[in-house]
């Protein structure tokens, strides 16, 4: 079955990774890119050898499936528009900037005929997959404590616009590891205490994001998702999680399969970190494409995506109230 696919907004920094994968694949047709910002849309289309389509409804009329790389605040509108056109979508994380919008997306998805996936690429990390097997097989016994990190550089652009992003580091760097922990353990985050602030950059959103959580069975889970890495750090950031069990411990570092490449001189001079890990963006796209073909749910559904949004909302509420807050769905 031939599949026509498009990119719905090129605003997100991950757009290039997904678009490259769409143009690389020979089992689908990368029909085009639409974006309210003509220059951004054209640049993306040109780089990946596809067409810029100014009218989103025109593109939606020509494709079977789309990848939403819009700012967080626009996710719901894009999903509504795509569902109305009968287009399956893979949506960047977080599912939405508020729990109310995320819930509305879940409702819409349940009532519609289209598949909706949430971009949680870490679920495809080989180290994480290995950890899932170890935890399911009880290789480290009962889980007693969980410690995660998802630090990064301050991304700038719409990511630091409270209207478009809905928040800062809490919004951007909470959901990956929360989703991964829930996926790996089969348990949910039930309570959050947050220490958040703006300490590193002069931006209108928070860049400090330290969350002390507990799972439904009482397991403590600490996450540092701050934008605390300097611009000159050797790579974009990190994504790690460590489990302490009754019979052992295991640690997953999703970025620790890399080769250091030092460029001697010129504009690229310096040390570059080149990953040799499984390309999780490619795996994410492959799963989404297969889900459309096989008429099944993609790896992460809105029903799962809404959970991480609920944790984000509880984190903001905790920071405001200065006390731990229960995660309500």
């Amino acid at each position, binding site marked *: 079955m031939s599949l026509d696919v498009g990119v719905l907004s090129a605003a997100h920094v991950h757009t290039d990774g997904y678009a490259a994968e769409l143009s690389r694949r020979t089992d689908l047709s990368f029909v085009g890119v639409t974006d309210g910002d003509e220059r951004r849309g054209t640049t993306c289309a040109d780089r990946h050898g596809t067409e810029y389509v100014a009218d989103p409804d025109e593109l939606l009329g020509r494709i079977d499936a789309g990848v939403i790389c819009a700012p967080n605040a626009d996710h719901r509108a894009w999903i509504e528009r795509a569902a109305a056109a009968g287009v399956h979508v893979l949506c960047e994380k977080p599912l939405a900037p508020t729990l109310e919008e995320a819930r509305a997306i879940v409702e819409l998805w349940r009532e519609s005929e289209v598949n909706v996936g949430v971009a949680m690429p870490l679920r495809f990390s080989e180290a994480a997959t290995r950890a899932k097997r170890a935890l399911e097989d009880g290789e480290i016994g009962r889980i007693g404590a969980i*410690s995660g990190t998802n630090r990064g550089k301050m991304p700038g652009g719409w990511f630091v616009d409270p209207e478009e992003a809905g928040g800062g580091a809490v919004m951007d760097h909470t959901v990956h590891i929360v989703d991964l922990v829930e996926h790996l353990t089969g348990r949910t985050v039930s309570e959050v205490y947050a220490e958040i*602030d703006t300490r590193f*950059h002069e931006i209108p959103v928070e860049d400090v994001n*330290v969350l002390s959580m*507990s799972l439904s069975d009482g397991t*403590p889970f600490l996450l540092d998702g701050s934008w605390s890495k*300097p611009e000159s750090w050797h790579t974009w950031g990190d994504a790690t999680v460590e489990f*302490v069990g009754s019979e052992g411990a295991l640690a997953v570092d999703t970025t620790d399969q890399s080769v250091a490449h030092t460029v001697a001189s010129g504009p690229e001079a310096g040390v570059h970190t080149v990953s040799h890990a499984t390309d999780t963006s490619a795996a994410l796209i492959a799963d989404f494409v297969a889900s459309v073909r096989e008429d099944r749910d993609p790896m992460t559904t809105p029903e799962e995506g809404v959970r991480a949004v609920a944790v984000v909302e509880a984190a903001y509420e905790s920071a405001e109230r200065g006390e*731990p807050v229960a995660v309500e769905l």
Partner: protein
Amino acid sequence: MRIGIAGAGFMAETHLAAYAEMDVEVVGVAAPSDPRRFVDEHGLDATPYTDVASMCANEGIDALDVCTPTHTHVDLVRCAVEAEAAVFVEKPIASTLDGAREIADAVDRAELTFMAGHVVRFFPEYATAAELEVGTPGVARARRLSPFPEWGSEDWFADREKSGGIFVDLAIHDLDYLRWCWGEVERVFARRHREPRAEHGFVTLRFECGAVGYVEASWAQPESRAFTSELELAGDAGLVEFSTESDSPYRQWTDDGELVESPHAKGGYRRELEHFVSCVESGTDPAVGVREATESLRLALAAERSADRGRPITVSEVVA
């Protein structure tokens, strides 16, 4: 300088190794069970005692080094004060703030040199990190991961009444270090997981300067995992980071396994005890006096209380 050691366990042995390289005499060792064996095993020219008071009374010591379980500290400091000896006490200073106050009153009244063994400040990697510029403090991360301590006499680490638990005994290393780097902490929030012979804790910190931090401390690691400590200090002008997991200047393999060492001409314990000895000799105040050690205990107790009550605790409100 004549030094008496109270205790004949793991810490006493660690201190003894440092003293052996220094210009001091260990003249007595006091421990309730079989101190002679300890003296003989280490080839010491020291008198064994079964009680600290007799050692202090008989040996004319200049300093008492207290390497015993935490709950015994207050009484042993009194012995040193009676003998007008300077006193070094392993961390934590005491189990309770009342105990710390008794120690403060006793050493202040006698005007004796007092130091608490917050050795992390003297470890070369931590001392170096503390001097590096990161700008305005942002987020501090400190981890200390170990198997359950099996070396305590009569298994005192397994008795939380005696050890104080994971925050008071283990996390206090990093709590003290981070206070030293970034100043006092306004509030803490802590969680922990406990089993009969395992404990793992997390404590988040909000410093008075506004920065955020967290300490992760574990006594729940498998024996096969080498002791791990990690530090990150992130500020608006830079980042400092190290991990013992990637710090392996000397490695050795035999059929029995792997050995990783980070040899230093002077390690943290030696630097710490040399500092103490030089303060005793010169009559100056040690870097970690009774007030510093008491504030670090207060912070650790705040973490224990937060974990007990499931809510954030303002550190200055912890008075007992």
